[in-house]
Structures are given as structure tokens and as C-alpha cells.
């Protein structure tokens, strides 16, 4: 929703073109045009990417068609390719990551924005921002040397003993697998959620809080029922960012997920994700079909992001209350 323009539209086409020229001389119209071009560039780049992916994946699309989405075989020698295990792995790891990171991240953001004194909050935020810069290779190494042994020796056995009746926590505990990858991803995306959510919460006008408190709500109620909804779109935005990162993360995932194209109901099972298999096989892909199949996987990821984004937006649209500050899709 943009604020309305001051210019009054003219009636007839001739007058329209004349006023367009005069609008052009007006600095604001130039500004509008230029900023429009920048915004259009974004769409252009995205479209260009999709086109490149579409063209590059022509071979397997013609050969496999729709079965690419539902087959589980990945055989570069026999040139049989199916995307299902990778789609599964991508979704599961991202799901685990968000499941862990969103509550923790939002909770931490609330604490930093509402409760912590500025002297504590600002430096902490600094450090958290810094962690977004840690290269994913490092997260991968940390996952390999710290998280995996921890998982194998303590966390997985503990979960098996307590919640082992759930199919989620069954099967041999290697240390690598969906769960480990999910944890590493959660650590990677938490800084985004905290950073952006905190900023958004801080930008909520003071009078909103004070009005709630004046009406007799407790601190928590004013935060949870007034401030957070006001900042809802911003927080959702941060979750989108986190989701996007989790879906596309390559290096860290490939070092801890086990790199086995399997579909399993257990979180302990090793698996594979789209980004990981592309990273692993792209540079060495012999044969056009193999290369193109990997490019088609990239296209599939694009599609996945498209759908997930759409669903999330739908959700937001349905739950946005009228009149609660910034409500837009």
C-alpha cells in the first residue's frame, strides 16, 4: 500500500501525454520512474534465472516429465533421475530448522527489544549480527566435529529412550541425518530472525504499549497481544528470510546430512537435500543429462519456494486483523 500521489490525472489522451511530459519535468515523476526501474530489475533478474533454469533443464524434462517429481532413483551412470528424496530432505530439514529457530528467535527478540536494557541489547545484537557472516563451511565443520558426536552419543540415545515410540525417533543413530542438519540450519538462521524481529519490535510506536498497559494489561499481555501483532508482518518477513536460507543452504547441510537419497519417517535417518546434491555433483557432472538433471533440481527448488511462499502469504492474509498497523501481503 503506497501513500497516494499528489498528481491529479487528466481526462483526455492528448491532455494525458502533455501532462506526462510535464510530469516528467517534475522531479517526483523522474524519481518514480527511476525507482520503478530498480524494482523492475529485481523481477527481471528473477525471471532471467528461471529462464536459464528452464532452458538448462530441457533434456530431463522431455525425458522424464512429471515422473521426475515422484521417482526416487538417482543414477548418473544409468541416467535415471528422480527428485523425490531431495524434495523430502529439503522440506524436512527446513521444517526442523524453523521448528527450533522460530520460537527461540522470536523469544530472544522479544527479550532483547522489550526487556533488556539498551546497554545490554545493543552489544548483544552486534554479536548476533556478526554470526550471520560466519561462512557456511565453518558451520559445516562445527556440525561435523561438535554436533554430530553430541547427537550420536547423547541427544539421539536420549530421545530414543524417552520418545522412541514415535516413528520420528527410531532407527540407528549415526549422528548424521535430517535432525542434525535441521539443528545446524536452525543455528544458522536464528540470527536473521532475532535481528530483523528485534528491529521491527523496536520500531513499534511507544504509545501502543503504553495504551495497553494503561488499560491494565500485564507486561506480557501488552507485548504478546499488542506489540507483536503490530510487528507481525515484519516478523513474518524475518521468518521468510530464515525459511529461504534454510531451503537453499548448501555447504553446512552437505557435511552433516549423510548425503544418502533416502526417504524415511525417522529424523535420525541420513538423507539428502536439493542444494546439497547440486553442490556435490555439479562441478563433476559428466554427461549432459546428469548436468541438466541437476539444473532441473534447481528449478524444482524454485518451485518449492514459490509454493511455500504462497502458502505462507495466504496464511498471513487470513490471520491479519483489520486495522492492526501494517497489514499487507
Amino acid at each position, binding site marked *: 500500500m503506497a501513500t497516494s500521489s499528489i498528481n491529479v490525472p487528466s481526462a483526455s489522451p492528448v491532455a494525458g501525454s502533455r501532462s506526462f511530459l510535464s510530469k516528467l519535468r517534475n522531479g517526483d515523476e523522474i524519481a518514480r520512474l527511476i525507482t520503478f526501474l530498480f524494482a523492475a530489475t529485481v523481477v527481471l533478474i528473477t525471471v532471467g534465472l528461471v529462464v536459464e533454469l528452464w532452458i538448462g533443464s530441457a533434456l530431463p524434462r522431455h525425458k522424464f516429465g512429471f515422473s521426475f517429481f515422484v521417482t526416487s532413483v538417482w*543414477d*548418473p*551412470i544409468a541416467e535415471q533421475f528422480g527428485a523425490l528424496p531431495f524434495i523430502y530432505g529439503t522440506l524436512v530439514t527446513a521444517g526442523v530448522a524453523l521448528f527450533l529457530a522460530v520460537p527461540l528467535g522470536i523469544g530472544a527478540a522479544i527479550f532483547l527489544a522489550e526487556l533488556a536494557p539498551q546497554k545490554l541489547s545493543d552489544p548483544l545484537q552486534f554479536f548476533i549480527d556478526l554470526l550471520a557472516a560466519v561462512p557456511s563451511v565453518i558451520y*559445516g565443520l562445527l556440525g*561435523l566435529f561438535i554436533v554430530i558426536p553430541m547427537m*550420536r552419543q547423547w541427544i539421539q540415545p536420549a530421545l530414543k529412550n524417552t520418545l522412541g515410540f514415535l516413528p520420528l525417533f527410531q532407527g540407528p543413530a549415526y*549422528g548424521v541425518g535430517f535432525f542434525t542438519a535441521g539443528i545446524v540450519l536452525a543455528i544458522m538462521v536464528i540470527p536473521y530472525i532475532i535481528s530483523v524481529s528485534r528491529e521491527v519490535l523496536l520500531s513499534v510506536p511507544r504509545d501502543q504499549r503504553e495504551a495497553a498497559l494503561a488499560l491494565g494489561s500485564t507486561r506480557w499481555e501488552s507485548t504478546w497481544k499488542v506489540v507483536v501483532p503490530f510487528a507481525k508482518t515484519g516478523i513474518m518477513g524475518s521468518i521468510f528470510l530464515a525459511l529461504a536460507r534454510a531451503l537453499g543452504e548448501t555447504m553446512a547441510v552437505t557435511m552433516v546430512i549423510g548425503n544418502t537419497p533416502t526417504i524415511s519417517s525417522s529424523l535420525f535417518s541420513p538423507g539428502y537435500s536439493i542444494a546439497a546434491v547440486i553442490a556435490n*555433483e555439479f562441478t*563433476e557432472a*559428466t554427461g549432459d543429462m546428469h548436468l541438466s538433471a541437476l539444473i532441473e533440481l534447481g528449478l524444482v527448488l524454485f518451485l518449492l519456494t514459490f509454493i511455500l511462499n504462497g502458502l505462507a502469504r495466504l496464511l498471513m492474509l487470513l490471520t491479519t486483523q483489520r486495522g492492526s498497523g501494517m497489514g499487507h501481503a
Partner: protein
Amino acid sequence: MKRLAGMLLVVLALGGMVWAQNALLINGAGATFPNPIYSKWFDEFHKANGTQINYQPVGSGAGIKQVTEGTVDFGATDGPMNDDQIKAYRTKNGAGILHFPTVLGAVVPTYNVPGVNTALNFTPEALAGIFLGRIERWNDPAIANANKGVNLPGNDIVVIHRSDGSGTTYIWTDYLSKVSGDWKDKVSKGTSVNWPKGLGGKGNEGVTGLIKQTPNSIGYVELIYAAQNKVPYGSVKNSAGTFVKADLASVTEAASGAVKTMPEDFRVSITNAPGKNAYPISSFTWLLIPEKFKDTGKRDAMKKFLNWAITDGQGSAENLSYAKLPKEVVDKELKAINRVQ
């Protein structure tokens, strides 16, 4: 705002400034396996001649691709280019591409079996069976019979392979394809294959890391990784029936055996080579040099480098756990260098 813009312009200009670059810069990319020795060689060459040869270890397949596309001046690979790839190069570039072996390496079976501290013996049947998923426990007779006296547990074997496409995998699967008809039919050889079972580790380092972390595991890595990371690795039975543990001498012997049948273009597989003490999972690694160079300066520098690397350069190989080229191969190569125009 203006000040900021001014500062930015200055920095951009500085960045664009050409550092005193009188020396030639040659770019190459390819296999990760020979990276340590290549980095040493290019460094020494630079110190002696001033030529800058920039080599990036991005993988054998990437090396082949990039040199074909012309984005780098030369490539490097652990698995020789096949006929289709060579034809593709010729079509794209109008001339041929030459393979030059530089050093020899070995791929070894590494493992982590609780309670076992000695080097295990593996027969080709055992290795194929394990990686095919047919042999499931450590105390299976196929393994136990070759290791009398060793207390092998009855635990399930965890297979670990490479997740990324690599020359190491090519060498390993090439060997298994030769010694096991089943493997050849079901999986065959390549830089990326459809593994019947197992976890995937990224890079030699990833595999080594996983093996260290996972009890009852077995995997394959380049000799140098096993040696440097002090992971136990086993001996493999060669075609003459001897159990050989990979070392420089046994690798060189594998190469010597192949010399008699060495094709003109040096593309040869020396896995399962004949020879009493030859290590059966050895391989050359090659530099991919275009037949025709557009830039004469680069051409002369590369020829000079090749000459040096296969003669004087060989002296540094053994310190870094690579085996030297057999003399007969070196002689053949010295003649072949003249084909580079």
C-alpha cells in the same frame, strides 16, 4: 553523501589499479587430489621463473569442463577424459587436448572397527561385497578368513562413500568394476555413481571425518588423507595374490607394470595392475594441456613447466606421499611435450 561518493570513487579506482604485473598469469583448475604437490610445484616454478601459475582445486570434472569451455588455460584430472569428452573438446576448440601424467597416487580402504588396531587384509571380493551391501557384518567369513587371529566384532558395517563427484571415486569404482562382475553390472564406474548403500561424506576430508566419528565404518580415501589424519587403512589383495599395503614403492610398481602397454595419449587405468607387489588401487593423475595455445608466452611457460615437473619436480613428490613417475613414462612424456604448439 557527496563525501561518501567521493570516497567510493577513490577506492574503486584503487581497486582497479594494476599492481605491477610484469609476470605472466596462467590459470588452471581441476583435481583436488594432486593439489598439495601442484601448489608446491607452481610455487617453486614461480620463484625460479617469475611465471604465475594459478591452480584451483575444484574437482576433476570441473577441470575437464572448464578447460573445454576455455575459461582456464589448462586442466587436471584423476580420471582421464573419455572419447566423447575429447571429441567435445575438439569440436569446441578446433584442436585436440593432451594428457600428461604428473604423479601417482593410491586410494586406500580406511575403517574404524572398535578393538581392531592392526591393518586389516581385504580381498577384492570382500570389498565389492561390502560396498554392494552383500557383506553386512565385520565378522563375515569373507573378511575373517583373510584376517585370522584378529578379533572382528559381529557389528553391522557402516559404509561411507563420497557424496561429491570425484576422481577418487572414479579410481575406486574403476577397480571394483574390474574385480567384480556384479559391481560392473549394477553400479559401474564413474565420478558419481548410484551407491547401493552407505552414507556420503563431502571430500576426502568429509569421509575421513565421518569414519573417525562412526564406529564400525569403512570408506575409501586418497592415501595422503589416511596418512596425514592417522586413520588405519588396510591392505588389498592384488592380482598376483599378495596383500599389499599402499606405499610409494607398491604404487610405482603398479605403474611400471602398465608402462609396456601405455597408449600414446597416456590415458591408461592402472588399477588391478600386474606385478608381485603392485598396489591394486593406484592411479596416475593428469594435467590436461591444449594442443594449441593462442598465447605463445603461455605456451612456452607451460612447456617449460611440464619439462621441469616430470623431471626435477619429481623429487618433491615422495615427501608429500605421492609416487614418482616411472622413468619410461617420463621419457615418453618428454617427447610428447613437443606436440604442444
